[in-house]
């Protein structure tokens, strides 16, 4: 198939899968087979695009005219390729996990769950492959809307409140800040295409205007969860854990930081921003988010909440790295999208496995759980090591590049933030590992074993990927470097 056909397939396969899942709703086994088949087909489409992109080609597709002069267009570049690859490959693993989780917990409304999941992946592919800001914005909003039913899955008052916060923050920031930024870009630059080096260079904007526009973008991309617009992410934790794992550790939040990197690299242009010094404030905001969210994570007893705040902090690593505006740090930002994804999904998988097997949700209840669930907690430990940045786990590689980038930029604050946050990461993850393996279980607790098999298989796979990524890093690294304009 040609590149254009593969792009169309990557968008249509999950959408068609959603329809198939809805039709197969009465027969759970058939329905889950449709999910798995769709996920596999999607990965095949995305992999089909990979060789061309690695070879330097940029497959494109334009279909409708959304506004005069702006098409609904797609163009696969390295960063989008990396994001699509991460999301689509983890979807397969997550689907296996979902089957175990949803059945193990006897969740209601499973058909709706799988339908919305498939639609969320379609939206994610749209974001990853979008050729211009308007297309990206269309799928960005679609992703918010199709994940809302997943957040409010339980339908109780807590879910409703969480859903309101989720929608309020994500729709609110995107409509009030991001949309005016996009329209202003159109008014000033006369184009919304993603072009290497940026489209605002010749627009004749003052430095202050560029800075203001950048602020509209950075805070308007609520999915990147910069403080103070991060509250939707902890609120989204009312969702079933597979949703938190794939969507709120990978697809949705990565769509946010992906958009941040896209905007910095392809709308403003790294050189332009560095020249006019319009982004000087951004590392400080990102650094503050990293530290503040880490401290909140440290103080959260609820495991999913701790993971959520850890995600808020990790997302700002990407923003921080991109805002340093050196080629190496931009590559680090791109790579961290992948590295954090595999690590964090493992941690969420473990949290869900713990909940399914023992119905425990708080960190303080986990004493000695490693003896009953050695596989789960072993995977958890690997994920935690990766997020702290200890070799050979995946997180080490991106963090190392970030340190190098910060050093190259001579940004001492960024170096200090990275160092301090590494300590904080260790402080909120290692006690969990310690308690799980080295403390005695409390007396009188119900005895339980491991979670259902599909969940274990899934978390073992992502744990292995976390460890293996540095050794298989050629592809992600090549894509990350190409994003930053280093190498092909």
């Amino acid at each position, binding site marked *: 198939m040609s590149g254009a056909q593969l792009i169309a397939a990557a968008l249509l396969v999950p959408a068609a899968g959603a329809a198939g899942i809805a039709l197969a709703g009465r027969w759970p086994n058939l329905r889950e087979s449709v999910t798995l088949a769709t996920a596999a087909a999607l990965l095949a489409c995305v992999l089909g695009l990979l060789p061309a992109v690695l070879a330097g080609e940029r497959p494109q597709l334009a279909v*409708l005219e*959304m*506004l005069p002069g702006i098409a609904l267009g797609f163009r696969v570049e390295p960063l989008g390729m990396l994001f699509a690859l991460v999301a689509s490959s983890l979807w397969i693993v997550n689907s296996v996990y979902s089957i175990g989780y949803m059945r193990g917990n006897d969740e209601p409304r499973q058909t709706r769950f799988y339908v919305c999941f498939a639609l969320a992946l379609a939206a994610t592919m749209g974001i990853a492959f979008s050729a211009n800001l308007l297309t990206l914005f*269309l799928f960005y909003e679609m992703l918010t*809307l199709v994940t809302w039913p997943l957040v409010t899955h339980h339908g109780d008052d807590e879910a*409703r409140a969480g859903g309101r916060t989720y929608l309020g923050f994500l729709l609110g920031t995107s*409509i009030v800040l991001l*949309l*005016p930024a996009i*329209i202003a870009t159109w008014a000033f630059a006369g184009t919304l295409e993603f072009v290497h080096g940026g489209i605002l260079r010749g627009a004749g904007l003052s430095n202050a205007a560029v800075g203001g526009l950048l602020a509209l973008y950075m805070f308007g991309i609520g999915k990147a969860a910069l403080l103070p617009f991060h509250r939707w992410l902890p609120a989204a934790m009312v969702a079933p854990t597979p949703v938190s794992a794939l969507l709120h550790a990978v697809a949705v939040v990565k769509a946010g930081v992906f958009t941040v990197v896209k905007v910095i690299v392809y709308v403003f242009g790294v050189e332009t921003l560095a020249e006019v010094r319009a982004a000087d404030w951004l590392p400080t905001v990102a650094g503050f988010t990293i530290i503040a969210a880490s401290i909140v994570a440290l103080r959260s007893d609820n495991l999913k909440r701790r993971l959520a705040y850890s995600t808020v902090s990790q997302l700002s690593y990407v923003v921080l790295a991109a805002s340093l505006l050196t080629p190496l740090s931009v590559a680090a930002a791109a790579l961290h999208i992948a590295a954090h994804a595999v690590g964090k999904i493992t941690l969420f998988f473990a949290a869900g496995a713990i909940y399914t097997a023992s119905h425990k949700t708080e960190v303080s209840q986990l004493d000695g759980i490693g003896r009953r669930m050695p596989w789960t907690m072993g995977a958890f430990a690997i994920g935690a090591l990766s997020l702290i940045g200890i070799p050979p786990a995946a997180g080490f590689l991106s963090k190392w590049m970030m340190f190098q980038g910060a050093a190259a930029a001579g940004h001492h604050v960024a170096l200090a933030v990275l160092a301090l946050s590494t300590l904080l990461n260790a402080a909120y993850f290692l006690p969990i590992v310690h308690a799980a393996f080295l403390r005695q279980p409390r007396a009188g607790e119900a005895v339980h074993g491991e979670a259902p098999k599909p969940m274990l298989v899934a978390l073992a796979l992502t744990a292995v990927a976390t460890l293996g990524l540095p050794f298989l890093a050629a592809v992600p690294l090549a894509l990350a470097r190409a994003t930053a304009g280093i190498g092909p």
Partner: protein
Amino acid sequence: MTLAHLPALVVVVPLLAAPLAVLLRRSSAAWAIASAACAFSFAAALLLAAEVAAQGPISYHLGSWPPPWGIEYRVDALSAFVLVLVSGIGTLTALYAWRSIAAELPRDQLYLYYAMHCLCVAGLLGMTITGDAFNLFVFMEIASLSSYVLIALGRDRRALLAAYQYLILGTIGATFYVIGVGLLYLATGTLNIADLAERLPQAASPRAVLAALAFITVGVSLKLALFPLHFWLPNAYAYAPSAVTAFLAATATKVSVYVLLRFYFGIFGLQLVTELLPMREILLALSLVAILTASLVALWQADLKRLFAYSSVAQIGYITLGISMASHDGLTAAVVHLFNHGITKGALFLLIGGIALRARGASLECARGLGRSMPLTSLGVVIAGLSLIGVPGTAGFVSKWYLVLGAIEAGSWWLVAFVVATSLIAAAYVWRFVEAAYLSAPGARTPEPGETPATMLVPAWILVAACVGFGLQTSWSVGTAQRAAALLLGGAP
């Protein structure tokens, strides 16, 4: 031969269908006549729009009397656009009425509905197509009188009061309009719109022109429900039969907006309008208040029809806001929103009509758990609701895009902030429905599981699909609106 007479036929066919429906009496025959007449007008409007796009404006002389002595029918980018909207919605609501009206009216009154529907369509189409200011008044009266009857047909006794309110205010509006036209005639000695525009600058008495502008502004503003002249609208929409609400909400106020555009830009000219009276500032202020207050009031409504009626007042505010910018992008926003809001509100009220039919009421209580009992209807309301908010991929987004673009180009960033912030209020009131339908347990008033009848659901979903279609492929809608804006500003035709 017939093709040349299309501008006349577009109005005459529904006009003649009305007495025919009365003569035939049988409800099925009346339905068939009304639907066929509206469908003919729709086809004719599409043909006219295509011809205008290809060859420029069409001038048709009624009875071959040349203007300014005879009555001229004039089709240009703007009027063709409105013709398509009115006749399209008219056709869909006529088809929809088959089941909807039958459930709301006694059998022996059904033909009356169809007759009045045809008259109303003919009146609105006539208002749009005519190039003569007094002829416009005649059609305005045809449309108004028939709409009073249509509203009074509502099952609820309060419909009579609502129709009466509308009758009083509508008559005042039409009277003001005709006084204004009379003053213009006094000042210029002509009634042809193009001729008026030519002669007005040399008018002997600027005071008469000023008075005419004021009278016409107030009169037309009453008809288009510009804040604070909107008080007739919520009651009229809430108590009229469902098909009537949908038709009027999607077309009646829009045609009045069209008349305002014609007079401001086609006759008086931007210069005169802003010189004689600070009309831009007045329109801007009223639009802002309309958007803010009506959106907030909508937020507290317990009845879906009233909720979306107040939302209409707010959305009209967005249209007049675009007009007040008086720039190319502002007018594009106004014209395209006139169309986009028409299809969006039409879809919403058609779907709510389905809920009202199944639940015997349209309060928000009836919507509890509706996502399960009427899945297609609920999904339609959600999609049309997204268009109302202005989510990308829907028609409402396109309007918002041009409105914000116009504000940015005028350099008023506070207006940008206002427009985007108020669309969040729209999100809040649409979300009340979503939470009721999808996150609430069915209540005592929730209908039994079962969809809206197909003859009602299909027209509604055609409009829902249009909401998405005109959000993704906009070359026709925005292209026409841009041509219309250029026309109004006196640029290329």
